[in-house]
């Protein structure tokens, strides 16, 4: 008894510490065999859901038995009795036993007696199996032996149940860990997805910002750009494009909107609407940088440079046209102006050459010197008109300045002290004549500009004997000008200059300015009532008498040619007793500007 209780206690300690169910069961078999003095002991485990038991652990059995042998829970099995009755099943001598049949392995091991008790399961659980001691010799089992077996079986049941609980706990823990891990993985995946989404959103926002930036650029480009639908409608276009296009759609080949469009190419040919770059792009053609004059409704037509490029979809079909329009009107107008100016300058130069050539060919003289003088005088008269026109940006020439340039030396007061000083070359016919003919009268030495002013001053003061520069008394000017300010139109300046030059030349050679006491008075009025007629009177006095039979010379021919033929005016010449009186009447409105 004591030995049995000691075995129980030792097993209890072991079972509490052990964690391996097979170790517990084997140790249980060893101890219970020892305690009861049997050669063999075993634990049969009821396999759940099956009507059989497995020899789970044992002592004294041949190899290949423990863990392998199974016993069917049929009516003739001792285990079946144990399970169904819950009581201990004892056989003192298998030879006398008729309640059940011994399984083969027991017979093979020579088992002659055995006792088994049920190992109960935990609360609410089926029995774990059966604990059995087997003896190879017939023997009796005392009640105390059975009680010991029962106690032992209960300890086993407790231990098994504890391990089961631990295993269940462990399994549950593992499941929990598995689920936590799974959940963590899911969270990580979700996190990754969120990160990816955030990255994509950032990228989209960045490209949107970039697009917004591009749109701002496109909005403010000085170039019109638009996408055009196959219908010809503008899908999107920047403000410059809308301004240049002037309507919501472009003309396209199939829409019949062409009549509202007027455009010409560089050669002035009308461009058909279906040949516009936009319409061509919609047909799949690329047209780059075509300039044409394009009119929107009643507005002034403007030169535009237009390009059209087809935009193709995934199936290579044209889905839209990209049309770019640039306003090149200023560029074109500047080129036109430049070409016109170049042509005009060229034309004027050629024209002037033709006039100079004519002057050369028409001039007759007896000596080379006098030929040179005559030619220089005429060319100087032409140049004077050009100079005055240029100073006034070719809008016109001041009449008084033109005559002053011709008669300069005769318009100033002559100081005897200053005798012999030659007038500058620019003084025109009078100066040349004075130089060449060594005019008996002394000429002023003042500068050309000052001379004009001085002449006017002297004229206004009309004071003979007025001193100049505080020197000796001066002689009054021999020529006088009087008249209001008249601007000769650009086209009249040159012929008028020629006419005055011929009159002056004649006066210096044969008329009043050829004699010491001769005087010349030039006066003019502008008759505004009759379409701006200039009426100029040239009066010579104190000159030599005119030759009795004057044939019209070159001078009067030029006078008539310029004033009558060219300017459409009239020339009246009369040789009175005191000298020549010439009336020039010139319509100023007749000359178109330039």
């Amino acid at each position, binding site marked *: 008894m004591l030995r049995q209780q000691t075995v129980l206690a030792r097993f209890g300690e072991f079972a509490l510490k052990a964690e391996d169910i097979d170790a517990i069961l084997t140790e249980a078999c060893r101890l219970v065999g020892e305690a009861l003095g049997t050669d063999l002991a075993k634990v049969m485990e009821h396999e759940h859901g099956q009507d059989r038991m497995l020899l789970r652990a044992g002592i004294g059995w041949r190899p290949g038995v423990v863990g392998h042998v199974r016993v069917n829970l049929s009516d003739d099995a001792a285990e079946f009795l144990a399970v169904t009755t819950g009581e201990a099943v004892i056989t003192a001598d298998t030879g006398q036993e008729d309640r059940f049949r011994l399984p083969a392995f027991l017979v093979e091991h020579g088992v002659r007696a055995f006792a088994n008790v049920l190992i109960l399961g935990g609360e609410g659980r089926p029995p774990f199996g059966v604990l059995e001691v087997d003896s190879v010799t017939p023997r009796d089992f005392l009640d105390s032996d059975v009680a010991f077996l029962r106690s032992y079986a209960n300890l086993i049941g407790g231990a098994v149940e504890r391990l089961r609980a631990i295993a269940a706990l462990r399994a549950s823990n593992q499941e929990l860990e598995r689920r936590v891990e799974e959940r963590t993985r899911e969270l990580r995946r979700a996190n990754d997805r969120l990160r990816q989404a955030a990255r994509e959103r950032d990228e989209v926002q960045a490209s949107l910002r970039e697009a917004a930036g591009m749109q701002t650029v496109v909005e403010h480009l000085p170039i019109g750009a638009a996408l055009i639908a196959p219908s010809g409608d503008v899908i999107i276009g920047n403000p410059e494009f809308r301004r240049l296009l002037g309507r919501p759609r472009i003309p396209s080949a199939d829409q019949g909107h062409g009549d509202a469009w007027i455009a010409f190419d560089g050669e002035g040919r009308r461009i058909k609407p279906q040949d516009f770059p936009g319409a061509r792009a919609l047909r799949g053609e690329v047209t780059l940088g075509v300039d044409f004059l394009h009119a929107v409704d009643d507005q002034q037509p403007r030169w535009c440079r237009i390009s059209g490029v087809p935009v193709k979809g995934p199936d290579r079909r044209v889905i839209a046209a990209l049309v770019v329009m640039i306003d090149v009107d200023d560029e074109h107008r500047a080129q036109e102006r430049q070409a016109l100016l170049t*042509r005009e300058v*060229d*034309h*004027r*130069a*050629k*024209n002037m*050459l*033709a*006039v*100079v*050539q*004519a*002057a050369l*060919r*028409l001039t007759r003289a007896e000596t080379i010197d006098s030929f040179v003088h005559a030619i220089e005088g005429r060319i100087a008269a032409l140049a004077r008109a050009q100079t005055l026109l240029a100073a006034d940006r070719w809008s016109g020439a001041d009449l008084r300045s033109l005559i002053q340039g011709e008669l300069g030396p005769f318009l100033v007061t002559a100081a005897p002290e200053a005798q012999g000083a030659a007038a500058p070359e620019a003084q025109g016919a009078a100066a040349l004549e004075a130089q060449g003919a060594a005019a008996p009268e002394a000429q002023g030495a003042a500068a050309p500009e000052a001379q004009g002013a001085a002449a006017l001053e002297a004229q206004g003061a009309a004071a003979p004997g007025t001193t100049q520069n505080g020197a000796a008394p001066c002689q009054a000017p021999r020529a006088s000008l009087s008249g209001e300010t008249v601007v000769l139109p650009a*086209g009249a300046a040159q*012929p008028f200059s*020629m006419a005055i030059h011929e009159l002056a030349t004649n006066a210096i050679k044969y008329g009043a300015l050829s004699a010491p006491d001769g005087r010349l008075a030039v006066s003019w009025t502008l008759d505004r009532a009759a379409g701006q007629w200039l009426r100029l009177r040239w009066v010579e006095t104190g000159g030599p008498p005119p030759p009795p039979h004057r044939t019209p010379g070159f001078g009067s*021919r*030029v006078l008539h*040619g*310029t004033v009558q*033929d*060219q*300017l*459409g005016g009239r020339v009246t010449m009369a040789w009175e007793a005191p000298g020549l009186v010439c009336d020039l009447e010139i319509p100023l409105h*007749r*000359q*178109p*500007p*330039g």
Partner: protein
Amino acid sequence: MPADGRRVLVVEDEALVAMLVEDALLDAGFSVIGPAATVEEAMGFLAAERPDAVVLDLNLAGETSTPVADALALRGIPYVIATGYGASGLPAGHQKAMVLAKPYDPSELTAMLGRICAPV
């Protein structure tokens, strides 16, 4: 005289050039009508009589003499265009006209007129 007194209308606004042309034509045996310095005057002369040939300056005091050239072409009167613009500046419809580039030698003009005047 090869010119045989044929009448030539001179349309030229520059008085000196007109005088030179006039002298050259007279020396060569032509008789001169004009000169006309404007389109209006030229048209007046053409209305009064039919010249055998015309010397036409393209630019008349800022206006183009194209209307005169048109009238001459219409009436079949031969003409020579004198211009400082050169042959490229000829008005539409007159690109094949005889051209004298200003400044020109008067003898060139008389030779050209001699060629274009219809034989008597």
